[in-house]
């Protein structure tokens, strides 16, 4: 990096938007440099001007679209699909595939739009978790990603259109999300993403709204089980949000984010994580008691309790909010949630194999 390749611009500068959106050049990208001064994102931005770089396609595809996060939407869809296959309430299979693809495209599109918003608002300069690798590594401009996000959302919308036409009641479920999405896009510099109640939006998006909507779209109608299923998947997703926010408690607190972890503080956040997980374990076991065979109740109860012990121990004994110890505790907790989800997926694969007569 030579000094001539650095550029600081005030947000009132007429060229500022060209640099932040990356439209100033086709061959170069302007990378906003990270700053440790968490309140410095508002007025001036220092850019490093670098040549556009394109890595291998797969790396670019996987990281830009955050493929690793897709399981959050796919797992609930899979559970609903298997449930309806078992209940013999699966209507049109093509419609089921279209709806699932719609969810995948919408999730990728919304995440991308969020990353662009973080970039434009400057949050990716001060928050290590914010932003998209494609922007931080000069693969694409913010404008490219914004356009891509619109394409993904449009494709998702088109794929979901047949279900919406056949089952217009899904509109009622989607309406609150549209309203929140618009509000988020138009709100102040932090948007709603870094506020406490956004966690409940995540809960609804990856929980009841997703499972109920998907079941309706595949012709399964509405029942209590799909609500319970959604509550559990939403609860699990918010658990992961809490873990990320807990891991970044210091930065979030300094940056003035108002999420639940910041509001509760370190000690109470530890308690919330443990209580959140215990409630999930209890909820999932009760779900198995009501909707599954006795053997699964015992398998889930034994496995989840065994998996919870190291997690509760790691989180409870934590004394500092910085350094590697908090990351390790969060890793243990993340592994516990991944273990629970894997077990749940395996159970559903088992059901499918039994249904198909393989077992």
């Amino acid at each position, binding site marked *: *990096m*030579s*000094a001539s390749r*650095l550029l*600081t611009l*005030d947000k009132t500068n007429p060229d500022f938007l060209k640099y932040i959106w990356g439209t100033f050049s086709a061959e170069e990208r302007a990378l906003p*440099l990270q*700053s*440790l*001064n968490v309140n*410095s994102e508002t*007025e*001036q931005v*220092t850019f490093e001007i670098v040549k556009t770089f394109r890595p291998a396609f797969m790396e670019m595809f996987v990281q830009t679209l955050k493929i690793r996060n897709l399981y959050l939407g796919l797992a609930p869809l899979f559970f609903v699909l298997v449930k309806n296959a078992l209940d013999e309430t699966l209507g049109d299979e093509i419609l089921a595939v279209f709806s699932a693809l719609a969810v995948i495209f919408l999730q990728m599109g919304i995440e991308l739009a969020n990353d662009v918003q973080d970039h434009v608002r400057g949050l990716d300069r001060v928050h*290590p978790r914010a932003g998209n690798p494609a922007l931080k590594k000069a693969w694409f401009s913010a404008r490219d990603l914004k356009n891509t996000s619109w394409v993904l959302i449009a494709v998702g919308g088109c794929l979901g259109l047949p279900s919406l036409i056949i089952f217009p009641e899904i509109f009622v479920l989607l309406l609150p999300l549209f309203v929140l999405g618009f509000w988020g896009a138009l709100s102040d510099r932090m948007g709603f993403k870094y506020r406490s109640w956004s966690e409940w939006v995540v809960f609804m998006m990856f929980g009841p709204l997703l499972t109920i909507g998907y079941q309706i779209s595949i012709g399964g109608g509405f029942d209590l089980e799909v609500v319970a299923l959604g509550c559990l998947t939403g609860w699990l997703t918010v658990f992961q949000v809490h873990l990320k926010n807990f891991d970044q408690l*210091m*930065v979030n607190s300094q940056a003035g984010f108002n999420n639940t972890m910041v509001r509760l503080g370190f000690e109470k956040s530890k308690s919330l994580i443990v209580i959140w997980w215990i409630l999930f374990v209890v909820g999932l076991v009760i779900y198995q008691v009501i909707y599954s065979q006795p053997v699964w109740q015992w398998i889930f109860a034994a496995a989840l309790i065994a998996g919870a012990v190291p997690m509760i121990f790691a989180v409870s004994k934590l*004394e*500092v909010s*910085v*350094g*590697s*110890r908090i*990351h*390790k505790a969060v890793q243990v907790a993340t592994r516990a949630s991944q273990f629970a989800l894997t077990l749940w997926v395996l159970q559903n694969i088992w059901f499918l194999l039994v249904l198909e007569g393989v077992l």
Partner: protein
Amino acid sequence: MSSIKIFDPKDFPSYLPKLNLLYDDLFTGGKGFRAKLIHIFCETLKAPHQTEQLLAQTIEFIHNASLLHDDLIDRSALRRGKTAAWLKYNPEYAVLAGDYLLARVMVNLSGFGNIRLVQYTAEVISDLLEGEWLQDSLVGDYDVKLPELDRVHNLKTASLFKWCLRAPFIALEKYDEELHHALEEMGTLLGELFQRSDDLLDFDVRNHEGKALLGDLKSGYFNSFASFVAEDLGSEVRRELKKSENLDQFFQHIGGKEVFSRKLEAFDQINQKKIDLYQHHVNTLERKVGADLARQMRPLTNILYWRKAP
């Protein structure tokens, strides 16, 4: 130093002889680098002598209060080649003397009447203490990463550099946002570079002052360079590093002196990028304040990171 010691007649009353002795001990031998930085700015800005004296006293008092407390927390026996205050007197006196310095800062600054300066100074003291606290909680953490240490150093070390650069402007009620943004970033970079260079002394790199080697590591603290060297090493090796009695053993643990040299080169390279960024912000200072001040600020990275004589 006497001009820094007494700003107000009530500073260091003679009926507290031990406090005066402790203070004189502490200040003798210090380079007064931060006060010199204040002088450069005040001279350029043509600040009244009283203002410069107040600012110089403030920064030296805060810095020395942190040293008094730091030595006690770290159980360091020496400060500037002499017995540390907590050992020479006792821990209680060292704590009280540090508290007294901070209290005098607030008394004198509030008397100056610039509420923004008082608030900013209080924030810096708060950052400093947060940084101290966080750094202490990282003792024994052998897997700590460089970006996490940077955040702690930004609070603990860089906050005072930021204050030195911004406070003269605030004292003179010059609040240009673009300028303060540049000064804030420059202070952060200077603090970071100074801390990283200081951490290198532990490994006998540019150690012209003859500082004791491996002090941080032996006390269980992975400083920025140790953390950088260990980034590719497994947990077991990281724990072994702590047991290094001397540099040869340290080299052995990380795979030889060549590995150390390569790591040092890479470390210098990432810091050179920070130096380039610092110089870029000096351009803003030059445009906003003048070439003379910029000319004096440019060599600071040579002094603070490369440890070259001014």
